[in-house]
């Protein structure tokens, strides 16, 4: 792991690291139409997330945090406003373009893991590489490396239902990582885990963040949020509070000072 960090860090020179915006949202609106009812979920979100940041999005149920994450992940489309991902305006995105961007830029971690049940651990991890057109041999090799990284190498041939919750989530994280994304979006990643495993998963996220990958984690658990550098609270479709999180900062500072 240490070796991995050293290789990647030189690319993140100080000023570049702080000034580059990975995600910029200007006045994002989203309304869901359900029959005659329309539900205005996001009512003008303005947000900037820098490259390499680790952000928690909190808020009560219905505050729009999952919707926000889906829009950020190109899984859903916003109605109004501008969304820049890595400096690119996301507009008039058709399914194919969105798929390619997701494949190249984004990694996902879900509360319910969303592993393919008939594929074993290694095959699940390798899947994003299949859609990148990586040859079978090299993606199998890479899958093993990433499984090793999350400590699941001995379980490479196991099906998801033979793994514990924590193992499943680590598997999902390895899958999110293998495509070398710039941003990992996690939707309640610890929602289905006990507190010990939750802690392990968050440690893993912090390690990942230290390699320069931007992390956005939706959660409603305070202790989870406090393991990030910045906590954004949503309320009724708007950003309520947005503050740097003291606890997490030292980690980032330590790296930046390197």
């Amino acid at each position: 792991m240490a070796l991995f960090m050293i290789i990647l860090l030189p690319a993140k020179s100080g000023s570049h690291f702080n000034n580059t915006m990975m995600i910029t949202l200007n006045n994002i609106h989203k309304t869901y139409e359900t029959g005659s009812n329309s539900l205005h979920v996001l009512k003008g979100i303005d947000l900037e997330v820098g490259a390499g940041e680790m952000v928690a999005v909190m808020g009560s149920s219905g505050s729009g945090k999952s919707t926000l994450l889906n829009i950020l992940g190109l899984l859903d489309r916003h109605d109004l406003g501008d969304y820049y991902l890595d400096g690119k305006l996301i507009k008039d995105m058709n399914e194919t373009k969105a798929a390619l961007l997701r494949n190249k830029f984004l990694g996902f971690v879900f509360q319910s893991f969303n592993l393919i049940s008939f594929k074993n651990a290694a095959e699940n991890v390798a899947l994003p590489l299949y859609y990148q057109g990586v040859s079978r041999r090299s993606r199998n090799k890479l899958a093993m490396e990433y499984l090793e990284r999350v400590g699941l190498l001995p379980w490479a041939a196991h099906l998801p239902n033979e793994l514990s919750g924590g193992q499943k989530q680590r598997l999902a994280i390895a899958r999110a990582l293998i495509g070398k994304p710039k941003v990992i979006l996690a939707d309640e990643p610890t929602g289905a885990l006990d507190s010990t495993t939750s802690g392990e998963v968050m440690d893993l996220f912090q390690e990942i963040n230290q390699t320069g990958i931007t992390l956005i984690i939706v959660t409603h658990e305070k202790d989870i949020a406090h393991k990030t550098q910045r906590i954004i609270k949503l309320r009724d479709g708007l950003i309520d509070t947005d503050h740097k999180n003291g606890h997490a900062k030292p980690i980032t500072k330590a790296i930046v000072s390197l």
Partner: protein
Amino acid sequence: MFDLDKWQEIFNTIEKNKMRTFLTGFSVAWGIFMLIILQGAGVGLQKGVENEFRSSATNAIWVWNGQTSKAYKGNNPGREIRMKNDDYSYLGSQIKGIDKISGRYNIWSGNTISYKNESGSYSIRGIHPDYQKVEQLTLVKGRFINENDQQHSRKTVLISKLVDEALFKEGEESLGKYVSINKIPFKVVGIFDDDDGRDDNMQVVYVAVSTAQQVFGGAHNLNGIVVTVGDATAKEAISIENQMKSKMASRHHFDPTDNQALFFWNSVEEFSRFRKLFTSISMFIWVIGIGTIIAGVVGVSNIMMIVVKDRTKEIGIRKALGATPGSIVSLILQEAILITAFAGYVGLVLGVGLLELISDQIDTPFFRQPEVNLSVAIGATALLVIAGMLAGFIPAKRAASIKPIDALRDE
């Protein structure tokens, strides 16, 4: 390379979902199998009918001498009408639509045919060379009575297999030997077999009609005339029959409406009645076959829909990981095509195999040698594959256009 990869992905999916694959495959294979069995049965029925009519041409019109039953132009009823050689040449040259024609001069009984110490009593039929086509005689050995025999009234004879066995003992070669017919020597030129299996058609020898008339005192008389009408329809055959009737009526001075003066039997009409019956049967079989195919199509469609529904979450995951809608559709479609094509082929092989197996065992009247038109079978298989494809395409397309977020939503 990428394509190979895709197939590996598909095989991987199939291998991990054996039950689903089996169910899809089974419904396709069963549809094709049933279609082939039904088609085979239809063909078997048709062949059975054709076999029943095989013993004589199915396009023949037979005419026999008769007696008038109506007074006509001063002639009393009860007058015998006898056809002569010139009726034969007249009909053959004057009536359009007649394909083959033969006169018949028969000596039914009282003949003794002998060779060495063996002898028997058989019918003698004097015929023209065309007669072989009319009666559909099978030549076992030698040749038929030919034009040469007819023109020169040669004393040649065609004997039946049965006569051959009766006269030539211990397997003695009969071709080229002389048998005596009513003490007159005739050279054996051929041996025939009549497939209808009736004994009275086998207790027979054939000679040229001119020979029969000359040797057995027949002058220019004929007992009957038989013609074939090519591939005329029943309607055309009836018109030819009516022409023959009216021409003969004016030549022999009898009332054209007199059905007793000459007897006509039109096998075309008879055959076409049967053909209609069996056309309806084979249409019925087609209807059942198409029904089976539709059931197969519905089955495959149903399964494909369920498969796609079943895979919605997987599709959502794949999309989140960067699968394009096109790659989702082609993944599902290629799998569907692979399964239906393979299963269709299995059904085809099993169906054709079963037909081949029972084909030799079955030999009942009106049902024999069931077999299937291979292009029909292959066409049906292709249809099912395309149906499976379409059935998969619509839900696959829908699944591919589902927003990943909907597919991934927890239930």
